[in-house]
């Protein structure tokens, strides 16, 4: 529970950061806000002699408009994003989701990139960004590739990042009128016990597209198949179908029992929160609470 000694490197470009990481191999690790990494090191769960600080890399900063969507720098803190006008305009639900993370101290230093790359199973952004079909841009300063958020996580604390590769930005598509997104969650301790996010597109009172992500209860976010039961549902059937999807989703997930709760309890929570997420997303699609 004491930080072991380490050396900090402060590259000022993506290229240099990647090179440093590659050169030092398993001795080195990127750090941004350090809210995850330093804690893990204090607890003796991770050991690194070299930390490559990403805070001075301009490529990881800022929020840019790209078409109707946004490119969000991986080094942006939750707090910066929570108060960003462009984000509020493109994805109204996102600032609300961000504002619920942790507490203001963690949000002021913790970054969106750090959250995703640490791949803690209990994550709000991982759930929400999967639901709204965000894409991650991974790169090393010379090459880059794109990975959809829901494919990024290989397991608890495991991602597709290659050695020396960094998360550069998150491409966030705008949520257009007629489409509603929602994020709901509950916590028992510091991190969320359950997170559920949904995106639904409604045309002429019929659901034409629907996406549902259940997070924080399994090793990685889960996309229940049952959501397809909403497609084609006319308005009159929404309420009943939502309940059906909620029950089926709960039955389909196999939550991991841990200090947050038993598997059975989490399953019950999944049903409740899927229902709430879908109700909220549908109401957002109707422009009721936008």
């Amino acid at each position, binding site marked *: *529970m*004491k930080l072991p*000694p380490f050396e900090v490197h402060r590259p000022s470009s993506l290229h240099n950061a990647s090179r440093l990481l590659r050169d030092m191999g398993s001795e080195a690790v990127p750090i941004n806000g350090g809210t995850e990494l330093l*804690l893990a090191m204090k*607890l003796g769960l991770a050991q690194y002699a070299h930390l490559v600080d990403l805070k001075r890399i301009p490529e990881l900063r800022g929020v840019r408009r790209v078409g109707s969507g946004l490119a969000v720098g991986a080094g942006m803190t939750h707090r910066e994003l929570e108060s960003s006008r462009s984000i509020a305009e493109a994805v109204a639900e996102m600032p609300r989701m961000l504002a619920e993370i942790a*507490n203001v101290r963690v949000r002021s230093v913790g970054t969106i990139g750090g959250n995703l790359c640490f791949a803690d199973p209990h994550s709000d952004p991982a759930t929400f960004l999967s639901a709204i079909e965000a894409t991650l841009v991974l790169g090393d300063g010379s090459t880059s590739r794109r990975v959809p958020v829901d494919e990024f996580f290989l397991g608890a604390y495991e991602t597709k990042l290659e050695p020396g590769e960094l998360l550069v930005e998150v491409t966030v598509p705008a949520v257009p009128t007629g489409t509603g997104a929602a994020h709901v969650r*509950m916590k*028992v*301790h*510091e*991190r969320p016990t359950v997170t559920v996010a949904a995106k639904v597109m409604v045309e002429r009172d019929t659901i034409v597209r629907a996406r549902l992500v259940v997070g924080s209860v399994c090793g990685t976010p889960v996309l229940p198949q049952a959501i397809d039961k909403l497609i084609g549902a006319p308005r009159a059937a929404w309420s009943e179908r939502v309940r059906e999807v909620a029950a089926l989703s709960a039955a389909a997930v196999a939550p991991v029992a841990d*200090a947050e*709760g*038993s598997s059975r*309890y989490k399953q*019950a*929570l999944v049903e*409740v929160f899927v229902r709430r997420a879908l109700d909220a997303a549908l109401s957002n699609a109707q422009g009721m609470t936008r």
Partner: protein
Amino acid sequence: MMTQLLEQPTKLSTAIGINVDRADARDKLAGSAEYTGDLHPPSMLFGAVLRSQYAHAEIESVDTSGAEAMDGVIAVLTGDDLMDLDPYYGHALRDRPIIAMGKVRFVGEPVAVVAAKSQAIAEAALSAIDVSYRVLPIAATLDRALAPGAPLVHEGPVRPGLAHGLGKLPEREGNICYRYGFSVGDMEAVFSRAAVVVDGEYVFPAVYQYSMETHTTVAHHRGREITIWSSCQHPFLVRQEISELFEVPLDDVRVIVPYLGGGFGSKSYTKMEPLAVAISRKAGLPVRIMNRVDESMVTTRRHNMKCRMRTAASAEGQLLGRVVEMWLDTGAYADNGPRVTATAGDAGPGPYRWEAVDVKAQCVYTNTSPAGSYRAFGATHLQWIGESQVDEVARRLGLDRVEIRRANLLARGGQVRPGAKGLDADLVGDVEEVAAALDWSAPRPSNRGVGLSVGLLAAGAHPVSMATVRLGADGGVTVLVGTTELGQGARTVMGQIAAEVLGLPPSRIVVRGTDTSYTPYDRSTGASRSTTVAGKAVEEAAAQVLEELIETAETTLGVARDELVVSEGRISGGGTAVTYEELIERRFGLKGGELIGQGHVGPRGGSGGFADGPVFWEVCVGGAEVEVEPETGVVTVLRISTVADVGRAINPLLVRRQDEGAVLQGIGNALFEEMRFSDEGLLLNDTLLDYRIPSFEDLPASMSCTIVENQDGPGPFGAKGCGEGAFAAMPAAIVNALADAGVQMTELPLTPERVWKKIQSQQGISKNHSTEEVDQ
């Protein structure tokens, strides 16, 4: 104002009853306040503690040679270094070795200590120590420790501690550390007459006191003298214990206490001091031991408990009899367990007029970390149980829950416990205040409920305190009193008391921290005793100084004392006024000298009505309104009301802050906090990430604290203590409010999952639900 102020001090209110700014606020906000961890006596070494990873094991060997060979390591201490001493201590039972002596009894027990030139070296050296253990069978839970043939945590004769106050101790009996109980009335007859019997089994969790500052001690054992700087609440008891352990005269042990970053009981009695002294003795230099949070969490905690209670009442709602049996888990060492157990036993009946009560309380050793004092101990353990049964009686009989209390609560002067002081408070009045603040009878949605609770806590501990007040040649005052400032505002209040007596603004008074080499004796800082007991000594000491001033003024002014007026640092009479500075100069014939007053209180001699115990009954009363979300089990506390029945509020704002702090801690104990031990006795949640304490987001939307001032306390100006009662009241009020919302819980904390399971098992919430069966 006339000099009768000695006879009628409350008439002169220049310094009490007002919200004087805290004396320590500026230092603390500026970051200049010194805590033990900030101190660095010359040549100080840094200590690190190697702790057992087993809950129960024999130590076959400890090889420290690797650590000793490291650069910068000065000394390594093990049990072998203490063979010349009787290394066992404990104020209640002398059962705890300074460091493991051939055996460990809980995960985290100190096995070796390294003293080195830096903290990093000391910690690195720990991994160079080789310990070989022979693992023994473990009794890490109450059930296992109480089972026939259970592994014994302790063997050999029971040894009384130096301040046990437990009467004659019986022989050892399995893992029972201490038994307490009493029985009054004919229980069988009472139960055979009863129209209603409520019967239940209850579980209370182990929780951690969580003060911000961890236990920190710097000790210097040099030859015959020992100096200790420590984050301790009871410096004089530490001094006594160290003196006995290390066979050094009391006067040669000096304990200095800077500011404490919170205590709540976690720093009461002796904690890390013996270990720090022992390693310093070996190293020959001062050594600091500063716990990490996870280390402090296994240094002390609150007792977990299981309890069975039965309450009998007549058809008219008269409370007739109560039978209660409880088992408190004190961990591997007694610490304050016996006292906690006795206090829990005393809280069993609750403040009602019973025809019969039967209380059996057992303190049990287990292979877990030791448990001791925590704010409102005993009362917090039992009040939620007793009060939930009173509510249940009311529900079954269709009575209002305030009404049943009005009909059964003890009246002023009533007997709380045989042989103890009669009740010195108006409980019905307090309950009515709480109910009114909650809009008791207002209609509420089905998933909301209100609850209240009332209880008593024997406060004051041993009422022995001394104080010295010194009036200097410049008219400034220094108060020497052994009360520890641990954030409660003790120095501010002691200053106000002295200021009031002396007719000076509080800004002229300085209250120093304790240094046992010059601060007069004070038994302890705990049991809500300081304002009442130590404050009385300060009042008396200040009055002595005033008396000397008045004498000098009489001769100086040539005016009789009953024509003198004391006000704002001067005494006037016959048309002239002289300042205190001038009076001192007249008295000594030079610009120097000082006036010194001594105050002392005690059960015998001294002043104050402290002859009958307890010093006063602290009223534990409060109410809550909660909301439960049936589909998730989440409970939200919407509204809280408390009553601080303090006799006289020396500083009303500090009284409120005490209640607010106690409420938040009570909410934590009721809703979130729970130390989880594995079957192997390992504490599983020793960080804030998974040990959830309340934060600002858990503050109820509305909190009200009513201060009741009946001037009926034995302390200065009719004051009595506060700060614990609201804690004991909270879990009880919340449990009762939740039951009112349709969910009757018998296990704390009320985690969402636990509440949800209960709702599942009773198939939803229902306001009129009442359980006849015994809850498992």
